[in-house]
Every structure is written in C-alpha cells, then in structure tokens.
C-alpha cells in the first residue's frame, strides 16, 4: 500500500458530509436540553476546525474521492455493531470485560494490518475500510475513560488495574502485531 497515496487521496466531500452530520446532530440534541449552551459551543468549535481543514484540503486536492468516505462509514458501522454485539453476548453492564477484549484484539489486528499492508498488494480502500473503519470502530477510547471515571470511586484499585491492563496490554499486543505483520511481508517476498 502506498501510504503517501492514501494520505493525499481525495479528502473532500465526505469531510463536509461528516462535519454537517456531526454539527447537525449536536445542534438538534442541544436544542432539546438545558445543557444546550455547552453542547452548541462544543459542536461549533468542532465544526470550525473541520471546516478549516475542509477548505484547506479542497484547495490542495481537487480530485476528491467520495469512495474513501463510504468505505470508512461502512467499515465503522460494521466495527461498531461488532462491538455492541460482543458486549451484548458477554452481557457485562459495566463495560469492563467487553471493552478490554475489544481494545486488546483490535490493537493487535490494527498493528498487524498496518505493518502488513505497507508492502502488500491489498487495495488501498480495503486497508482503509478494515483499519480506519472496522478496527477503529471496533475499539473505543471513550467507553474506557467513562468506565474508569464512573468506577474509580467505588473500586479504585480494580479500576486502575483495568486501565493499566488496557494500556500495557494494548501496547504489548500492538508491538507484537507489528512484528508479525512485518514477518508476514518478508515471507511473502521470500516466496516470490
């Protein structure tokens, strides 16, 4: 996979779409609540940055490719559903066990994919959909933070241990996945 190509590849229409969707969702939501001011302001600041990047990118790269956004959307939806499905199967309301499993597995797979795809002949969009889409949507940082904050008062040691397992385990698995991915590439080249 040519990383440069992906980096510079069509950045545009989907950025505007996602920014609008996000801003619209936040605005509608904020109108219905007393916390309106905070939400609206956050959405405003957020969309300002998105718009800024959008305009900049539009000027710099006119050959926008809508397909990338579609691929990321579908991948993200699949990843999110898989995450919800796993939590549902595990039946753990606190979110500790499911989140940990998802984050550890996802870290390993994304590291492997990142390393493997650099030299492989996998299509760029497939790698984008699987990596940024599916694996990015499958793992979650917000639930991890939320679970940690909401349980810190009740069981501080266990909660910190959980956080540490996520952090250290994720890092170790990412390093392992990276090494495995590169070994895969070397083997492929050897076979050629």
């Amino acid at each position, binding site marked *: 996979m040519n990383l440069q190509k992906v980096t510079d590849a069509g950045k545009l229409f989907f950025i505007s779409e996602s920014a609008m969707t996000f801003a619209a969702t936040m605005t509608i939501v904020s109108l219905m609540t007393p916390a309106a001011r905070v939400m609206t302001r956050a959405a405003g600041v957020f969309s300002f940055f998105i718009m800024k990047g959008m305009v900049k990118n539009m000027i710099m790269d006119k050959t926008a490719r809508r397909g990338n956004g579609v691929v990321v959307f579908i991948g993200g*939806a699949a990843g999110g*559903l898989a995450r919800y499905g796993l939590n549902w199967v595990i039946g753990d309301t606190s979110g500790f066990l499911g989140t940990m499993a998802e984050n550890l597995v996802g870290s390993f797979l994304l590291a492997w994919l990142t390393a493997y795809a650099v030299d492989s002949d996998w299509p760029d969009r497939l790698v984008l959909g699987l990596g940024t889409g599916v694996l990015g949507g499958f793992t979650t940082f917000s639930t991890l933070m939320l679970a940690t904050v909401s349980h810190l008062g009740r069981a501080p040691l266990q909660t910190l241990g959980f956080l540490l397992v996520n952090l250290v385990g994720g890092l170790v698995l990412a390093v392992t996945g990276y090494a495995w991915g590169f070994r895969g590439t070397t083997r492929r080249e050897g076979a050629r």
Partner: protein
Amino acid sequence: MIWLMIGVGAGTGALCRYAVTMAGKRWWPERPIATMLINIAGAFAAGLVSGWAPLPVLARSLLLVGVCGGFTTFSTFAVDMAILLRNRRWSWTVVYAASSMVFGLLAAWLGLLLTA
C-alpha cells in the same frame, strides 16, 4: 432498531474520525496529535451524553455506543504508541500515552460533571 442506530452512529463517528485524522496529517505530520484530540473530545462527549439523564434510551445508544464509540479509537492509540517506540521517540511515547489518559479521564469526568 437499536442495531440500526448503533450502525449509523458508529459509521458517522468513524467518518468524523477519518476527516479529523486527514486534517491532522496535514497540520501535524508524523505526530499523532489528531488521534489524541479525537480521543479526548470523544471522552468528553461520552461524559456529557452519559451524565445526561433525560435522554431517551435509543438516542443514548446512538450517541454513546454509536457516535462516541465509533469516533474514538483505542487501536490507533496503541499502534501510534508502538510506532513511536519503534522510531525511538521515547519522550513522545510517554507524553502521548500520559496526556491521552490523563486528559481523557479529566474530559470524561468534566462531561459527567457538567450534565449531572
């Protein structure tokens, strides 16, 4: 219905994350600052949504499990750390991991506090 909500939410979240990551690659090349900001912002949003009691269950699933879950990512965070380590950028690795965690926790707590 809840599955549809979560699918659409997670897709939207992932799309937003991709957009911010793309912008981040232009603004801070070689530095995973965009992922850090995404995770902190997502944690704050998750705190807001989670602490906000009158929200209907379906909307909560859409925003919390869907959008926030799809927007934030742990796998990219872990891979970023691995890449920083591989490139022997020790101080960046520590700063990245520590600030993501600390500010993420603070943001989630602040979000809960604001709506509680």
